[in-house]
């Protein structure tokens, strides 16, 4: 029997039992649809995390003091005094892959205006910081290098600070605030960044020259972090290596000593976060996969029923010249048809569910070709795997007994 005839015979017998065929397919439809929807939701959330992280800035590297254990006592990171402004300047000067460098010091305290007060943080940075963080000034201006050198008490404030200290929609450029009793003149307002991926309000910030924060607020000479941006994301690994080498030389570390600083790249942070979302996607897909498996077992069940029910038909087919192989193929093709047609319907259903989720629940959703191809292949395999035993059973029937079967 050629394949075309087999297809015709198999599809005939399926359409003769339309409702049963549909119910059998339903297991596969739901399974495939949920695999596709789950993978789309997982992929979408992963992508949105990636987007948020890259919105933090481009190709950023963070240099910070490594925590040190001495004599079994953990010395806190904040107490470490291993990075200096000179380190930051050296990185900028000597590392070829580096585009911008900013030292960073951070202090927290109470900000007070003539109207209100608000607990917040002050960041001491240089002008490169705005480049690194890809942050623009909405109103007013940035501080100048001259102002940094002379530790001027000027600052830029985020939108939250404006709201809390001056009220919504106010324009406080030129006004004065005090941070931990030190007066600062507001020279600019930062563009709204919104909430970070970690749930932190990025606009709740005051930015001042690092020299000012070092001297007036914290009374320190070191810096807590150094922010670096590589010339491109491809170069971030090289930049990291260059900084490592440079700082080890500057800190006079011998090869046996561990670095007293650590460098983290944007990619590392991203991979940490996306790995969480990857685990979630895998978990959801696994559950969806189980429902696909259950659908496959449903096919097997129906195929067994079908073989028993059609024992006489099988006997007749054998009597009129059907070989074992023909019978095997007929039932196998029936189960493959069930699972593949169910799979195709399931793919469309899954796409529909995904777009429903993205349109009505505003979840980030991304349907990938991978998930479609994967579930389609999986379906065909299910059809063959779960159809094989019933089909084999049919093919092994003895025609004499099958013809007499009641």
């Amino acid at each position: 029997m050629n394949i075309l005839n087999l297809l015709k015979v198999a599809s005939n017998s399926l359409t003769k039992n339309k409702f049963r065929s549909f119910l059998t397919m339903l297991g596969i439809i739901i399974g495939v649809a949920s695999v596709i929807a789950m993978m789309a939701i997982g992929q979408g959330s992963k992508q949105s995390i990636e987007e948020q992280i890259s919105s933090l800035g481009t190709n950023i590297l963070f240099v910070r003091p490594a925590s040190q254990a001495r004599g079994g006592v953990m010395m806190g990171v904040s107490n470490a005094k291993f990075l200096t402004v000179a380190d930051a300047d050296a990185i900028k000067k000597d590392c070829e892959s580096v585009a911008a460098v900013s030292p960073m010091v951070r202090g927290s305290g109470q900000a007070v205006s003539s109207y209100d007060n608000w607990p917040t943080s002050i960041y001491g940075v240089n002008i490169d910081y705005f480049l690194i963080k890809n942050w623009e000034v909405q109103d007013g201006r940035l501080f100048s290098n001259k102002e940094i050198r002379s530790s001027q008490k000027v600052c830029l404030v985020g939108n939250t600070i404006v709201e809390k200290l001056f009220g919504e929609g106010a324009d406080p450029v030129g006004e004065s605030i005090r941070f931990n009793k030190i007066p600062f003149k507001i020279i600019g307002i930062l563009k709204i960044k919104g909430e970070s991926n970690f749930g932190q309000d990025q606009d709740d910030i005051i930015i001042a020259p690092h020299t000012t924060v070092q001297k007036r607020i914290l009374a320190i000479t070191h810096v807590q972090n150094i922010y670096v941006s590589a010339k491109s994301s491809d170069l971030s690994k090289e930049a990291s290596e260059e900084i490592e080498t440079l700082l080890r030389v500057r800190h006079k570390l011998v090869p046996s000593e561990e670095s007293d600083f650590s460098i983290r790249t944007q990619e590392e942070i991203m991979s940490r976060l996306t790995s969480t979302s990857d685990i979630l996607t895998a978990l959801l897909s696994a559950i969806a996969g189980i429902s696909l498996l259950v659908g496959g077992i449903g096919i097997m069940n129906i195929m067994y029923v079908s073989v028993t029910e059609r024992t006489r038909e099988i006997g007749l087919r054998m009597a009129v010249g059907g070989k074992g192989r023909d019978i095997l193929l007929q039932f196998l093709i029936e189960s493959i048809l069930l699972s593949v047609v169910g799979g195709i319907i399931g793919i469309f259903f899954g796409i529909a569910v995904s777009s429903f989720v993205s349109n009505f629940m505003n979840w980030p959703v991304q349907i990938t070709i991978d998930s479609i191809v994967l579930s389609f292949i999986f379906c065909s395999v299910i059809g063959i795997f779960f159809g094989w035993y019933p089909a084999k059973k049919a093919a092994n029937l003895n025609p004499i007994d099958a013809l007499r079967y009641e």
Partner: protein
Amino acid sequence: MSHKIIRIQNLVKNYDLGDLTVHALRGIDFDIDEGEFVAIMGPSGSGKSTLLNILGCLDKATSGNYFLDNVDVKKFSKDQLAVLRNEKIGFVFQSYNLLARTSALENVELPLFYNASVNAKERRERAAAALEAVGLLDRMNHFPNQLSGGQQQRVAIARSLVNDPVIILADEPTGNLDSRTSFDIMAVFQKLNSKGITIGLVTHESDIAQFTSRNITFRDGRINKEIVVENIKSASEALTKMPVELDY
């Protein structure tokens, strides 16, 4: 000497049921010539169904020779036997064995599906011709549940004809039918036989056997009696003579 469709020599069939061996056939010899209409008779358990299974290449003999159309089937594999059945044998069963929810035409087409050399167009034409031969061309799109028992058996006969077999083997084809319809079916067989088709028919009713040309009677796995019917009755004539009162 005419061409022998079936030649069996000292055919033995034993069924092994653990300790017990059932001797279904204990050494049988007979031939069926081309164009014959042979009735195989006997009470139940006499071995006639076993013989029919062997003649139909559905089962193999324990020993002895069986030549179908001069082909020794002893050495054939399962698949080769399937091809042999497809090309040389037509089956008619007591319970018709038509596929439900499948039109008469498609039922008749069935054997040709398993013959790769017949294309869709030819398959359809031959099935229609076979249906015409049993007088059911106008019912070709009817499903089995829309046909009477006699009509269903005619469809089954058409199916047995469609592959142009060397012999039609019928296993109690009238067993499920009333006597009038039985005669009607026998008339169909006689008509086909008159066109030169060889038929082997198993029955236990002697009034059915009287329409054939030779009766072989079995008892306990052996041939008990063999008679050539001198005066073959015509089933269609018997049908017209039948009182109408019996027709229900």
